C-alpha cells in the first residue's frame, strides 16, 4: 500500500469514519429520545393540560406557549434584522460608525444566552414594566436572534451579483426600486433560510425565557401578550429536575415534541432553499 492510490484509499477511509462521528450523535439522540418516549406520546399528550402535579395529562400549554414565543420573536426580529441588514449592505458607507455596528453584531452573537435572559429581565420585565410576559420573552429572544438574522441577510444580499444593481440603476431606477425589484427577490431564499434557522434555535432556548416569560405550571392558555406561558424547553427543565417521582417517559416525550418542532422548522427552511435553488438561473 505504498502507492499514491493506496494512501489515497487510507485517507479516504479515515475521513469517512470521522465524518460518520459527526452524524452519529444526531441519530443517537433522536433514537434514544424516541425509544424512551414510546408509550407516552399520544394525541392526549399533545392536546391536553397537565394534571396531577404534571405527572399525568399532556403538555398543550407548553406547546402553545412555545409557538406564541416563536411568533412573537419573529414579529420583532424579522423587520429589525432584515431592514438593518439592507441598510448595512445597500446604503451605509464604509466608515467608523458602520464598522462599529458590524463589530457589535459579531459580538452580540457571542453573548451567552443566560446573559440575554438577565438583560431581558432587567430591561423589559422590570424597567419597562412588561412583567414576566410573552412580550418580554419574545423581545428577549428577538434580541438574541438578531445577530444571526442580520448576518444571514447580509450574506444573502451580498450574494446577489453587483451587475443586477448596475443594470437597474442604468435604467433610471432609484435606490429603493433597485433594492425592491432587483436585489431582495433574489436574496429572499437566503434570508428565509437563515431566519428560520435562527428562530428554531430561539424555540429551544431555556435561559432567555427563564426570568422573562416562562411559567412553572399554568394549566390554561394565555389571554394576552402580558400573560405568562409555559414553554417546552423550560417545562422540560422543570419536570426533569424540580418534580420528584416524575415518570421518565414523560420527560422524554416532552423532549421528543421539542425536537420534532425544531426539526419541522428546519425542514421548512430546507424546502424553501431547495425550491429556490431549482429556480435559480445565474
Amino acid at each position: 500500500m505504498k502507492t499514491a492510490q493506496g494512501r489515497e484509499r487510507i485517507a479516504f477511509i479515515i475521513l469517512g469514519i470521522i465524518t460518520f462521528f459527526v452524524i452519529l450523535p444526531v441519530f443517537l439522540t433522536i433514537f434514544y429520545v424516541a425509544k424512551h418516549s414510546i408509550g407516552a406520546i399520544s394525541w392526549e399528550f399533545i392536546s391536553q393540560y397537565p394534571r396531577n402535579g404534571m405527572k399525568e395529562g399532556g403538555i398543550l400549554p407548553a406547546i402553545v406557549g412555545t409557538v406564541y414565543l416563536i411568533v412573537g420573536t419573529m414579529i420583532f426580529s424579522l423587520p429589525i434584522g432584515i431592514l438593518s441588514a439592507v441598510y448595512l449592505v445597500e446604503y451605509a458607507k464604509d466608515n467608523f460608525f458602520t464598522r462599529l455596528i458590524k463589530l457589535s453584531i459579531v459580538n452580540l452573537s457571542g453573548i451567552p444566552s443566560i446573559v440575554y435572559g438577565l438583560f431581558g429581565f432587567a430591561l423589559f420585565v422590570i424597567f419597562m414594566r412588561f412583567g414576566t410576559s410573552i412580550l418580554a420573552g419574545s423581545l428577549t429572544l428577538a434580541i438574541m436572534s438578531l445577530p444571526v438574522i442580520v448576518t444571514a441577510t447580509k450574506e444573502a444580499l451580498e450574494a446577489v451579483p453587483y451587475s443586477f444593481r448596475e443594470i437597474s440603476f442604468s435604467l433610471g431606477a432609484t435606490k429603493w426600486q433597485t433594492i425592491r425589484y432587483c436585489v431582495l427577490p433574489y436574496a429572499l431564499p437566503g434570508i428565509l433560510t437563515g431566519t428560520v434557522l435562527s428562530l428554531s434555535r430561539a424555540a429551544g432556548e431555556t435561559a432567555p425565557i427563564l426570568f422573562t416569560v416562562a411559567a412553572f405550571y399554568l394549566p390554561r392558555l394565555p389571554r394576552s401578550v402580558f400573560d405568562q406561558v409555559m414553554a417546552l424547553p423550560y417545562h422540560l427543565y422543570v419536570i426533569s429536575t424540580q418534580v420528584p417521582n416524575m415518570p421518565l417517559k414523560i420527560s422524554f416525550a416532552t423532549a421528543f415534541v421539542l425536537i420534532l418542532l425544531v426539526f419541522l422548522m428546519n425542514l421548512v427552511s430546507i424546502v424553501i432553499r431547495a425550491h429556490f435553488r431549482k429556480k435559480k438561473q445565474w
Partner: protein
Amino acid sequence: MSDTIIETKRFSAYFDGRCVLKDLEMKIFAHEILGIIGPANSGKTTFLRALNRLNYLKPNYSEKGEIYFLGKNINQIKDSELRKRIGIIFALPQVLPMSIYNNIAYGPRVHGIRKKSTLDELVEVSLKRAYLWDEVRDRLNSPALKLSGGQQQRLCIARTLAVEPDVILYDEPCSGLDPISTAKVEEAMQELRKHYTQVLVTNNTKQAARVSQRCAFFLMGELIEIDETSKLFTAPHDKRTDDYIRGKFG
C-alpha cells in the same frame, strides 16, 4: 451633424484622487455614432459612465468640470431622469434572471408605466428596433438567460430602448460576441441612428471605422484627437493616433 446633444467643459475624473480623465473638451452631435478608441486604461469607460453619472456608484470617485446634456448641467438633472434619457449597454451581456418580457418591461415599470397594453407595445417596438423580435416573439415569457450571448446583448439594447432614451452609450458591446452576432449588433446600431445619438467605446479599431461617423482617440485620460472617422483613420493629425491605428502600441 448639427445639434449638440452633449458637451463637456474642462471635465476631469478621479478615482482615489488619481486622475483618469483630464480636461476633456468635446461635443457629441445628434444622430451620430461617435466611436471612442484607445488602449486599455485610457479612460474610455470612465468617460462613458460619467455621462449618466454611473461612476458615482463607486465610493472613491470624484470629478471636476462640467458636462452639459441638451444645454443643462447634468448635475442638476435627477439621476433617474438622466439615466432614463442616456442609456448604457455594458461590455458583457447582462440580463436579469427573469423572462424576456420582464427584462424589457423593467425600465418602463420603474418609471411608472403599469398599463399592460402600453408595456406590450413598448416591448414589441423595442425588440423590433434591436432586431430581436423575430427570434423571440413566440417565447417572450421564457427566461432571458436561455438566449445566446448575441441575443442577450440585443436584449440589453432593447431593454435600454424601452425607457425611450435620447442617447445610447455602448461600452465595448461586442467584446464577448462572435462575428455574426457582432454584425447583427452593428446592423441594429445603424438602424437606430434615425432615432438616437450613440456613443460606442470599442477596443476594436476596425469596428470604430466600420460603424462610426466621427471618432475620438483617448490616451492616458486625454483626448488626443477627434475628427470625422474617414479623416481620423486616413490622415490623423497626431502621431500617437497614427501609431495606435497602425497597431504600433496598445
